[in-house]
């Protein structure tokens, strides 16, 4: 019996058929890899911009965009945005990163629940912006907690009259205005040829729905993520492409419940407006968020000055989420 089995194995071992079968099986296993390796012409990188924009958000998105730019396989980027903005400097950094990326490859944006204020600043250099009818975009403006007027040398001694506050409230408004002008100027630089809004209309800092934004040129067309990916591939000239969804480290922090619900970030949390300006603001905090994103229960005691935010009845100096005002 044993001799018969050994003879059979010997015969099989000498047969070409067995090796052909093994070869086919292994080949089929490796075939998809080989197929992709030879059929894909490039990759569309999807970069999420989620939650309140702070230094961490900025660093994360910047790293992902930098990675996309340096990867020779990435031919286009899709920004997947769901944010109401955040810190002014962090938003400006995001704008510069998007602008740099758009100079090297197509950048297409898909707006989820919102791309307001600093988030709109971020996506302004995009080649094409998609939004959904329920998306909210706009709020092009800056607001800030105002410095508390203090007389120097009473409690704290200083070498100069403006060392405590940086300047009086008139001068502070000029500082704020220069931030607002830079923001509005950047949006016009990037989208001036498509905007139906005048500069002063944009400075009103209104929020628009996705369909309104298509009308006024803040957005190019209605569409979702798939449309953005296909558009990006098309812009890059890719018929066959891979899609690589990049994920930032850390937790996405949301001020708006609406944005939180819409977010697909694996780690997300709600935060109060205190996260942005603190419980006891002692100096100016420049923010690029709609005032309506700030928690009514906590910001009633904070003083805000707005730049380019007159449209909804909001005005200079102290403000509340509803856009009320007092003093100048």
């Amino acid at each position, binding site marked *: 019996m044993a001799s018969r089995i050994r003879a059979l194995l010997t015969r099989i071992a000498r047969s070409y058929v067995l090796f052909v079968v093994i070869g086919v099986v292994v080949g089929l296993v490796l075939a998809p890899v080989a197929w992709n390796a030879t059929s894909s012409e490039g990759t569309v990188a999807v970069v999420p911009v989620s939650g309140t924009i702070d230094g961490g958000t900025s660093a994360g998105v910047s790293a992902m965009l930098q990675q996309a730019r340096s990867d020779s396989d990435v031919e286009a980027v899709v920004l997947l945005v769901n944010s109401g903005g955040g810190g002014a400097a962090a938003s400006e950094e995001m704008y510069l990163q998007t602008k740099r990326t758009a100079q090297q490859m197509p950048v297409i944006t898909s707006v989820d629940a919102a791309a307001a204020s600093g988030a709109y600043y971020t996506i302004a250099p995009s080649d094409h912006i998609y939004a959904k009818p329920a998306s909210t975009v706009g709020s092009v403006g800056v607001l800030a907690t105002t410095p508390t007027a203090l007389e120097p040398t009473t409690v704290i001694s200083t070498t100069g009259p403006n060392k405590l506050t940086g300047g009086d409230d008139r001068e502070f408004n*000029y500082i704020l205005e220069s931030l607002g002008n830079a923001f509005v100027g950047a949006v016009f630089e990037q989208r001036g040829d498509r905007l139906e809004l005048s500069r002063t209309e944009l400075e009103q800092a209104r929020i628009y729905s996705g369909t309104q934004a298509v009308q006024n040129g803040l957005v190019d067309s209605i569409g979702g993520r798939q449309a953005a990916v296909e558009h990006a591939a098309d812009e890059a000239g890719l018929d066959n492409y891979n899609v690589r969804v990049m994920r930032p480290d850390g937790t996405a922090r949301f001020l708006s419940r609406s944005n939180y619900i819409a977010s697909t970030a694996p780690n997300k949390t709600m935060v109060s407006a205190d996260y942005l300006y603190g419980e006891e603001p002692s100096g100016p905090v420049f923010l690029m968020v709609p005032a309506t994103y700030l928690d009514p229960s906590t910001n*009633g005691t904070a003083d805000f000055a707005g730049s380019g935010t007159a449209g909804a009845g909001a*005005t*200079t100096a102290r403000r509340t989420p509803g856009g009320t005002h007092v003093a100048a």
Partner: protein
Amino acid sequence: MWRRELAKRLVVLVLTVTVVVAVAAGGPLLLGDEQEPATLQNPEYEPDAVVPEPVAATGTVDANPDPAADDTGTVVIDRGHANRFTRADIEPLVDALVREGYSVEFYTDGNLAAALEGADAFLVIDPGAEYLPGDVDDVRQFTGNGGRLVMIGEPDRTAISTGLLGSSVQTQESRLTTLASGYRMSVDTEYLYNQENADGTFKHVLVRPTGEGGLDSVERTTMYTAAAVSARNGTVLLRSAPNTHKSGSDEVTGEYPVAVERNNVLLLGDKTFMRGDRYRVADNERVVAYMAEFMIEGDYQAPPGVDDDADNGTTTPMPVA
């Protein structure tokens, strides 16, 4: 022998590693020129395009009243109608009046007619309570006999007050309706803003003279919470700069009157321009001087039969609360 062979192989190994590392290090340098991104140009951030030109804050209040006006007199400032102003709000004006030989008194309560007796002008700033018909009659009698009336209103404003039970939001209204309407004048409730002609930010509107009235030397002034004012058959002294908006309105071309004059009554739509830290901005000091001149040139003549000893009204000297 074997050691020699081993040494040869080690040398080859080291050389190989060296070549690989050198290629790895040199590769990016050789290829670098092609991958170096161009420097990012940001013309949108050119300082000349972004930084607003500040409005200068220089000048002094130099009232130059009509030589025919009295060298001395009294101006009464209303404090009896929940008026909202501070010492800083009126000090530049008070200083100008005092330097011209005029004294300043406050009406707090009681008989207004008696309080105005002997005064040259009555100044009403942002009252929080309406004038009762009797008070309106007293003021109208005062102006009807040569006294000057200056009213300063404000748009509706929202104050945030913090107390034991937390913060609350309250609307503040300039309740000038009954007094001003008696002179066919009114103050709007909406604030003005201007995104092109402003002192720093949109609500700090620039204001220009109309060429009518006595503000010829003014080029431009600033108002920080301005309301439009109107006067039937009155003279508009100051208008907001072109492209001023009224809050809540989409109209963008209005040049709203913010200072109107009718006979011996002057109405302004902002109290902040004459504040201690704002009166030097642009030509605000000229408007303050004009207000002082307007009041000084008042010449109230008590009608026959008025009891000079009537003393029910209460006027109090400085200081301001």
